[in-house]
């Protein structure tokens, strides 16, 4: 497999490192665009179709309430997903690569 010790330059050029950077940004960007889509989707709904959000789902509760609070919860869960991924996948690859540097 790989040589045990390499210069920083070798690590930068290694396919492992390039893969790691690429993976990091794919995860980040997917999560970012999910957040943007949900938030701006909500704003557009508020701007163009208030009636949908005013639909009653309980005696008095409107759809708007679980949707609004749901977005807050969703935003938090997204940060949780990222932390989970980074702690489990990203950090171990980082350690591996760091150990290879002389």
């Amino acid at each position: 497999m790989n040589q045990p010790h390499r210069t920083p330059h070798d690590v930068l050029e290694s396919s492992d490192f390039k893969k790691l950077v690429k993976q990091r940004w794919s995860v980040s960007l997917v999560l970012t665009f999910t957040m943007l889509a949900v938030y701006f989707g909500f704003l557009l709904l508020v701007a163009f179709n208030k009636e949908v959000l005013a639909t009653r789902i309980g005696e008095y509760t409107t759809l708007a309430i679980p949707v609004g609070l749901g977005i807050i919860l969703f935003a938090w869960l997204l940060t949780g997903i990222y932390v989970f991924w980074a702690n489990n996948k990203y950090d171990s690859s980082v350690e591996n690569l760091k150990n290879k540097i002389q």
Partner: protein
Amino acid sequence: MFLALLLQASPGASTLGTANPVSIGMFFLFVAVTLYITYWAAKKTKTGSEFYAAGRSISGFQNGLALAGDYMSAASFLGIAGMVATKGYDGLIYSIGFLVGWPLIMFLIAEPLRNLGKYTFADVVAFRLRQRPIRIVSSVGSLMTIAFYLIAQMVGAGGLIKTLFGLEYELAVLVVGCVMTLYVLFGGMIATTWVQIIKAVLLLSGATVLVLLSLAKFGFSPGNLLESVSTNYGQEMLAPGGYISNPFDALSLGLALMLGTAGLPHILMRFYTVPDAKAARKSVFVATGFIGYFYLLTFLIGFSAMALVGKPAIESLDKGGNMAALLLAEQTGGTAFLGFIAAVAFATILAVVAGLTLSGASSISHDLYVHVFKNGVSDEKGEIKVAKRATIALGILSILLGLVFKGQNVAFMVGLAFSIAASANFPALLMSIIWKRFTTKGAVWSIATGALLSLVLIVLSPTIMVDIMGYEEAIFPLKNPALVSMSGAFLMGILVSLLQPEHEAAAKFESEKLRTYLGVGAE
């Protein structure tokens, strides 16, 4: 004289605006405890890293609480609860905008920022670009954001304290300015962080108790609460109303709130207080959780105030409904509880202005003094001396600004601060992290465009032309300029960088990757 002023009683149904022994006692206790912490922190604040970044000794969880504390200002506590209490559901739309910026901070900025920088976000922008021009423009961007935010906080503080304690506006501004200067001057980031943590815990627990006391009146059923709101003020209170009528307005304000969060200097600076990128990441998770929970509480507080205190009673005290949470506290928990919540609101202001002042002082000493006047050669003692002088100057300035803007409508300044943060600070920071071909000139033009467009367009917007100057119509149609100013900043940054490539910067981008992604060589 001071005490006599405080103890003056005035008639009325509510005891708001009169001396409340509990709130005064609580407030003095808070000031005493935080000044003791400052004394303790002062002994540990010798080096630059201790003054600016608490010696990088704050844990991820602690920093999460402190970040939440920085963000949960009195304006968002009283303001959002008040907005829900008077306008209903629309208040929630506003708070969602404030929350959704946090995930983006985590996905795009937190870890590279922690790995590349030292004390300020300009460290990151300037990392592979030419120091001097970058430091000058980015400190201007920082200081503008801080100044507008600070004015809004000081004027709000003076007015709020006058209503809460019956204390003169001028005296209130003076007290806030002096106490926060003491925190920053002697305790640096260590004191500022712990003040922020204590305040966050007080605010979250106070608001939780307030919600529990209120819900008890409805048999602990949110359904009953909504029923009461709907029967008294109409079902439309429970759905989006007139807050968003123009979709472009919504988009622009949404962008400012969301991405402005990722460009606030006092928030970004907090990421340097933790030991590494892993802790930085954890702190955003913790902060987002607490802030989300806090907005849930303010939503319930707003509706409870509407149902229990009543809209007319709230609006008679303050048209914007800012007193809703306090009136609710009095109604559900009596004068003692009102005193507690009022003291928490005061503590909140103190903690937030301290954070702002510290980030302003670091921008002056670290970005301007060291990197512009001393060519990057820092003697630590000299740098801290400058930082402390800057703290005193900013303390005096904030008191003066609080006095000058007394009675003015400064609510727009928070929106303006977020717009500048989203347009001047955020685009340059993001492009410097992710885009290899970003250049010094690109960064300078991007920051300058974002800041200038924000300033000019807000003056031409309905926010100032119609609401403040009283014109029939505004030249620029949007209430918040971020949509145009931020796009302009990105566009300028990209165009200028492509027109004049900077090979050295592109080459350094590759070599900085080890530090950005692996944390090798991070401070």
